[in-house]
């Protein structure tokens, strides 16, 4: 294994979709324990979809300006599928700022929870991709863009409905993701 030095093994890229729910964090932990490669260098990519805002910003009239404002911290080459809602709310700047702050705080807490799980696995390279939009499209687009070898996700997010055996986002991703999809069920 180590005798053949200098062999550039292709990276094993695993995308893990998280939404802050316990299920997705359980899936992350399970993936870390079971599907990482022991021969190739591992790269784990956390994919988090921020829920699209239900409102239209009042002050900023230019579309592109508004988008860029939301993504100044993250990659901007990915244009999210931000469809303007048919009916939204017009809020004052203060309300908009509060909502955005809440959304950012939520994102920070979700990523922090994921970090806590990643903590014992220091040898794994971790990347984070955050985008705003519908979770289904964000996950499938991100997986295609980064060329993931596998997508790991939970079976339900927060929308846990007793009769639904598989959540809608997971179901969508199984059918539309371009790579193998691993659904980790709640034990």
């Amino acid at each position, binding site marked *: 294994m180590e005798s053949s030095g200098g062999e550039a093994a292709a990276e094993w890229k695993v995308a893990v979709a998280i939404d802050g729910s316990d299920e997705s964090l359980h899936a992350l932990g399970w993936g870390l324990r*079971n599907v990482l490669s*022991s021969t190739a260098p*591992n790269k784990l990519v956390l994919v988090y979809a921020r829920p699209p805002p239900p409102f239209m910003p009042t002050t900023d009239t230019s579309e592109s300006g508004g988008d860029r404002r939301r993504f100044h911290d993250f990659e901007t080459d990915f244009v999210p599928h931000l469809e303007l809602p048919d009916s939204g709310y017009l809020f004052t700047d203060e309300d908009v700022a509060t909502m955005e702050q809440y959304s950012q705080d939520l994102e920070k807490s979700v990523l922090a929870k994921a970090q806590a799980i990643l903590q014992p696995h220091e040898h794994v390279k971790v990347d984070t991709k955050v985008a705003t939009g519908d979770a289904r499209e964000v996950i499938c687009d991100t997986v295609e863009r980064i060329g993931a070898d596998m997508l790991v996700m939970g079976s339900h997010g927060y929308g846990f409905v007793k009769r639904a055996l*598989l959540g809608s986002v997971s179901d969508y991703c*199984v059918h539309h993701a371009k790579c193998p999809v*691993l*659904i980790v*069920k709640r034990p």
Partner: protein
Amino acid sequence: MEQAGAKGSEQAQEKALKVMVAVDESEGSLYALSWGLDNLFSKASSMAEWGEAVVVHVQQPFQNYVFPAGPGTAVYATSAVMESVKKAQQKNAEALLAKIAHLCSEKHVSVRLKSMVLEGDPKEMICQAAEQVHPDLLLIGSRGLGKIKRAFLGSVSDYCAHHAKCPVLIVKPPHK
């Protein structure tokens, strides 16, 4: 192995997985098996660390239907026909398992291979088998049917993704 342990311990220690693989004669399921063998198992040195792959093949029981043989007539399947169909099914199953064993040996994977041939409705039998065997994950291929075809033809991979109690890994064949 122990000298390289210093560097080896930095790498992710892959658990020796017990994987259940659902196969039928389709290309998709063989591709899924092949992918699983390539990517889910590490090159363990001692057999104690080998993973396990339980291959499940479900055959649908031959129904004693009435065959229309022309206008106004019908043919019942005689017991001779039933027997020959059963034999043919058995042969198919054996051929499939032989193909799989050959595939595994070609890849030199450190995997213990077991196989189960069951009879019944594929989707239910696979889920039942998964409950009995308790694999770490269920690996299943997908035919890549569209929404409408899925509704009519039914999808085993869909059913298993919904109903299996263990993690399910669905592998679609690459788009060509």
